[in-house]
């Protein structure tokens, strides 16, 4: 021992050995982020949590890009001529690769929303906070989860209902579309009383009671539960929120008058380029505008079928003009219809100059930024009006018509027509049968009012047009892509192979 203390070298060695044994370095806390265990303690945590659930609606697979593509481009209203063959195939009900990017992101991002909502529902109840706010936040999360399942159930049919926070080991069981819809109905029925009719300005954009009941009505519509649907729609129509159609139809598709009186639920988007989402300074925009913008401006991924354009010319306004909704809905070659057309501008350059005088192609104009700039950036700030009153009016009219209340049906159809200065139905024709009203909605009113807003696919499904080959043949006459449609199969998308492979409880959709 004596040697040890008198020999400086040995002592130095001892010091080093002892200091080396300190195991502090093995305990490293992440200096960047809170752990999930540290979070979910305060009211602010709950608010930030619910904001993050809304944020999931912005991604490309939810409502940031593919939503319109999956619904509209596959419907009979729109076609796609993408040089990207896989993408074009998708609108032709042809899927050589079920993990194809679009199919992957749509499925995945929907479930990201579900996972986030479930984190709220599992963790926020434990937080000590304002009980009303807590209930509201739980209701918002439930609404967002229900919204997601409504879309998942419609697109994929047989999807797993996931209601709790996920763990890596979860291999959820598969459910049927009726089960999924029932879950949506139960959830919405349960929570809409906890949602406010309106929010203070700073919270504009959150889910309201009207949004929940409108969505509930939409689910009932898909199930042909006309009375239940009508009840929900009436509640929306008579809501203290005071919903009303905007005077200017175009206000529903720009960033100038967002969250307006017609809007029932709107996905919020803001401009700003960034190469990531959910990252510092990340993108908050929608990629819809650049996706559908014409060649030279954007990716050129969708065109309205000629029949949609023609439908706009079936009627004129009271003063004999072209339906004003046409120019809002699409870019088209106006000179083909109007010899005096001065080469209408498309993003600052005449249609004829840009695309040729005899070009018959059309492009989406709703949600495009041409009203303020001559280009499209990757991220567009225009909010997505996911549920707006005009749709609810027309759905209400459809429900009332099915319930044999034709006058009410006409009343609500006319509200929509009159906003665009189209004469009332009874002016056009003194009497209407139930079948005529239904056909008018199917082939005219809903097309002109809602083309390109992602509603058509729900309509085709609801009307049973995708269930029988005879109907398919009928659709085929205006959309040849339906020659690839297989009854009993194509109504659902294929579940991504990844999911079927990794989860033994999932079986691929019929026919795939």
């Amino acid at each position, binding site marked *: 021992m004596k040697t040890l203390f008198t020999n400086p070298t040995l002592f130095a060695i001892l010091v080093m050995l002892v200091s080396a044994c300190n195991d502090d370095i093995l305990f*490293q806390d992440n200096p960047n982020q809170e752990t999930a265990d540290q979070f979910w303690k305060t009211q602010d945590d709950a608010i930030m949590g619910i904001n993050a659930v809304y944020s999931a609606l912005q991604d490309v697979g939810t409502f940031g890009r593919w939503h319109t593509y999956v619904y509209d481009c596959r419907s009979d209203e729109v076609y796609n001529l993408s040089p990207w063959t896989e993408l074009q195939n998708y609108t032709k009900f042809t899927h050589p690769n079920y993990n194809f990017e679009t199919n992957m992101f749509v499925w995945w991002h929907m479930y990201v929303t579900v996972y986030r909502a479930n984190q709220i529902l599992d963790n926020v109840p434990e937080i000590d906070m304002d009980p009303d706010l807590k209930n509201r936040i739980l209701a918002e999360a439930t609404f967002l989860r229900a919204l997601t399942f409504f879309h998942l159930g419609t697109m994929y049919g047989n999807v797993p209902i996931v209601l709790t926070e996920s763990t890596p080991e979860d291999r959820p069981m598969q459910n049927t579309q009726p089960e999924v819809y029932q879950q949506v109905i139960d959830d919405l029925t349960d929570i809409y009383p906890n949602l406010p009719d309106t929010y203070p300005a700073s919270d504009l954009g959150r889910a309201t009671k009207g949004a929940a009941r409108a969505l509930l009505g939409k689910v009932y519509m898909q199930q042909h539960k006309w009375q239940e649907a009508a009840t929900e729609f009436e509640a929306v129509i008579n809501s203290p929120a005071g919903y009303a159609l905007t005077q200017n139809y175009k206000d529903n598709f720009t960033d100038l008058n967002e969250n307006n009186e017609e809007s029932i639920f709107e996905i919020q988007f803001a401009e700003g380029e960034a190469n990531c989402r959910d990252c510092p300074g990340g993108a908050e925009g929608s990629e819809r505008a650049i996706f559908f913008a014409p060649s030279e401006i954007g990716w050129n991924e969708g065109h309205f079928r000629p029949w949609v354009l023609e439908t706009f010319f079936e009627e004129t306004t009271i003063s004999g003009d072209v339906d004003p909704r046409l120019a809002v809905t699409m870019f088209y070659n106006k000179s083909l219809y109007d010899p005096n057309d001065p080469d209408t501008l498309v993003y600052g350059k005449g249609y004829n100059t840009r695309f040729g005088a005899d070009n018959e192609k059309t492009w989406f104009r709703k949600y495009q930024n041409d009203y303020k700039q001559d280009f499209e950036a990757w991220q567009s700030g225009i909010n997505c009006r996911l549920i707006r009153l005009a749709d609810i009016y027309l759905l209400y009219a459809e429900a009332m018509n099915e319930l044999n209340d034709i006058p009410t049906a006409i009343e609500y159809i006319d509200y929509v027509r009159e906003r665009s200065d189209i004469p009332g139905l009874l002016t056009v024709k003194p009497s209407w049968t139930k079948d005529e009203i239904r056909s008018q909605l199917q082939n005219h009113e809903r097309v002109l009012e809602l083309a390109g807003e992602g509603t058509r696919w729900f309509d085709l499904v609801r009307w049973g047009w995708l269930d029988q080959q005879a109907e398919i043949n009928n659709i085929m006459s205006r959309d040849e892509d339906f020659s690839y449609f297989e009854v009993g199969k194509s109504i659902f998308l294929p579940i991504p192979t990844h999911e079927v492979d990794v989860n033994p409880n999932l079986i691929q959709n019929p026919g795939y």
Partner: protein
Amino acid sequence: MKKITLRKKVTGLLLVLLLTAVQAYSQNLLTGKVVAADNDEPLPGVSIIEKNTLNGTVTNVDGEFSITISPGALLEFSYVGYLNKVVEPGDKENIEVFLSPDVRALDELIVIGYSSVRRKDLTGSIAIVDVEDAKTYKGTTITEGLAGKVPGVTVLSTGQPGSTPRILIRGLGHFGNNSPLYVIDGIQTNEQRDLNPEDVESIQILKDASAAALYGSRAANGVVVITTKTGKSGAPKITFNTSGGIEQASKIIPMMNAAEFAELNNMAYDNAGLPRMPGADAAFDPDIDTDWQDAFMKNGRIQKYDFSYSGGNSEGNYLLSAGYFTQDGIVKGPEFERYSIRLNSGISKKRLRINQTMFFSNTSSDNLYYGFGNPFMDMLRMLPTIPVYDNTIEGGFGIGSEANKTFGTNPVALQELNDDKSNTNKIMGNISAELEIFPFLSYKFNTSLELADWHNRRYRKRGLESYNRPQPYDELHENRGRVSTLMYENTLNFTQSFNDHNLFAVIGVSKIVTDWKQIGGSVFDFPKPYPVMSSGTRDRTIYGSDAKVGILGYLGRVTYNYKGKYLITANFRRDGSSKFGPSYKWGNFPGVSAGWVISEERFFNYNWINNLKIRGSYGLLGNSDLRGDYNYTSYINPSIAYPLGPFQDLAPGAITQLLSNPDLRWQSKTLSGAGIDASLLNNSIIITFDYFNSITDDVLVNAPIPWTSGHYGGPDPYSNVGKIKNHGVELAITYQQMKSEFSYDVTTNISMVRNEVLRLSEGYDAIFFGPTKTTVGMPIGQFFVLRTDGIFQNQEEVLAHTDENNNPIQPNAMPGDIRYKDLNGRDPETGELTGEPDGVINLDDREFAGSPWPDFEFGLTGNVSYKNWEMRLFFEGSYGNMIFSNTRAVMERMDDNSNYPTWLVPWTEENQSDEYPRALYGAAAANNVYYESDRWLDNGSYLRLRSLRLGYDIPVNSMKTNVFIQMQNVFTISSYKMWDVVHPGDVFTRGIDNGTYPNVRSFIIGLNLTY
């Protein structure tokens, strides 16, 4: 040289005169000279013994000797560091004996981590790399030169400038990162791109548990121990080496010209009943015929300059080296440059020895920018009817149009419009002090620092690179960061021999702390041409993060041998890592190995066997090399926002995005092995044989989990999911012969490795990844695809392809479409797979269709030298592996607009074949282009002449000058049609060709000077 020859002649004359007298005694007087075969220097002090006698002598300072021998005597020459040589002089009176340096000298000290061991005392499976040989391959890193050289070591490289090859030791032990640990001058590190190959003195590859166990938690993939050069005792030395050459694509894929393309493209549209693509028909422009390979590929250059001076004596040594390396590859855009400087020195004073290494490098690269696709695939995808340059398009590049529609990207435009650069400054150094406390005990303190500062910057100019992809803003993305790793190690070394017992031991503590810091940002829209962060005008963002990882280890090794015959080594390491949760931080990694040198035994008297050793080892290794440093729990992402309110102010959001596994724990690898080392026939044949078997349990993997979990935005969470067995054999044989001025040697090695999944945890019954499936009882990542069964030649064949009820299985198929095998189906009640056909072709019909893992891999090196000439050639190859070729699919699928290879002759009525289906564009072709199909599988076996070198030593006084010409990747024999048959893939993507940068053929000349 002249002088020597003259002296030799004089000596010879004298001998002739003395001849008679010598014979009278019935004894011969033999004189001669011993020189080193590698540099013709005379060797002083070589011991010469007449075999089976006590008669012997040694050479003088000039390497000369004279000895009287009996007729028919055998003379054995031995010299430290050189191979023993037995010569039968016969009736010669004068001989010149060449001793070749024994790179495998048995007394050579082998650095195996924390201590050195004499080669003959090794008990583990340690590959000692012939570094001089490895260096002859001119690439960015030294590891490229290891390809095919070391049994059990697979090197997968690309030709990309500045790329680091993927290296696998003994196949795959697990699913994670399988890169070995690098220990460079005692510094534990991962990559070695920045290391100058010229600085390397030795490389040892620790393949088994006995040796690697001292690196415990980081050693599961093997350990590559690299020691850099130091000054040697003797006169100061100056070296200057330079080489340079050109690189070119080793293969050009024969693609159609515009007219041929148009014909096939029209056929594809016609067959689909679609109006033809105008650019191939009505709007076909005969003036445009772009060869995209020609447009994007070019001849590259490679240059290397290295300078060093070094020296030393018994009290100290020094070495300074400086190097420059540049390479720009075979496609437009990328470029790589490295400047490096090294200073290594050491002093000895009394009982203290201090050594130091310090390395600095600056690397800069222009990166190959991939964009949304892959520039190599784009060369095939872009249509020959699109020009490379087009002034009417913003940016000036041809991108296609409605008339020439493609989803491909102009690869030239992609590189020109994206200025993507990286720059790294790296400092790596250590200082160690070793104190001899007692003659048998020394203490060593070693501390090291590795520090890298990096800067990445990409400026995307305005302009179009592909059709329908406008670029409204220019953009700039930059990031900078620093990673530093500090290591402190204290070790005690004990060495004692008493009688025939030799005992060595080392114990120590090792502490490693790694610190990461990074910051980055981006900004869009530059109205003026100043692409710096401050002059962008919109959407400025900034981000940054920190990380810290700590590893603490206690280690010990005891080696004992008796008479150098019986050898035993035991290792132990206990490691803790901050990467694991509180309950799972520590892991124990023991290892033991033993050897028996049979040739030292008294009973062993086979003269033709010079050395024979058998050895065996057993041990446990770990792997904590997880991507991400805090994986054991879930975190809240605070960077989520949502615009709310009338002004759409961003409301902050925060939530968990990535799932985690709190029970993450060490995976353990139990590795056992046995081997034989033998030298035969005067050491002219050297054989090393190894068998190994490893079992990895609690395998850590980012196993795919369902997307329904909502886990998104990062790799799948780590889980400990199963158990894998990995076993194999390795054999290396060297044959060398030296006959005065002519010598040659051949080394061949072969390794066979098999892996098998023994168990997967519940919930991970099978791991699917792209076209592969990993499941119990099979090797990892087997191709799992639909089986094609030729082409329907006519309608009858379509109708004849029926299920058991005689219903056609592919009723919508047309003649010329692909027939698939109906191999499986589902029970309509339970939904379970039945294993029976069900009359439907879908993904249930996938089956195992081949492996990305070769049956065996081999290498063969041959050296021949004659006088001053030397020729070296090196073959390597693999056999039995398959490739899934996404690259070939791009141009053969025909449902997408791409160019087509000239060999693609689609099925037509007139040309009925079983090789390719009919040309068909769009959705109608869906059934012919299933992704998960054996249509895209290819044979990956190959034999490659990796390098061929011819060298010449120029005889100049006092200076050693060597010039050489060399060709790399001379030819490859393989049935694979794409650019390169070798693709570095990850565990599950091994064998998948996603358009990797191919290895390139290069022609190099060089000069090495030593003064």
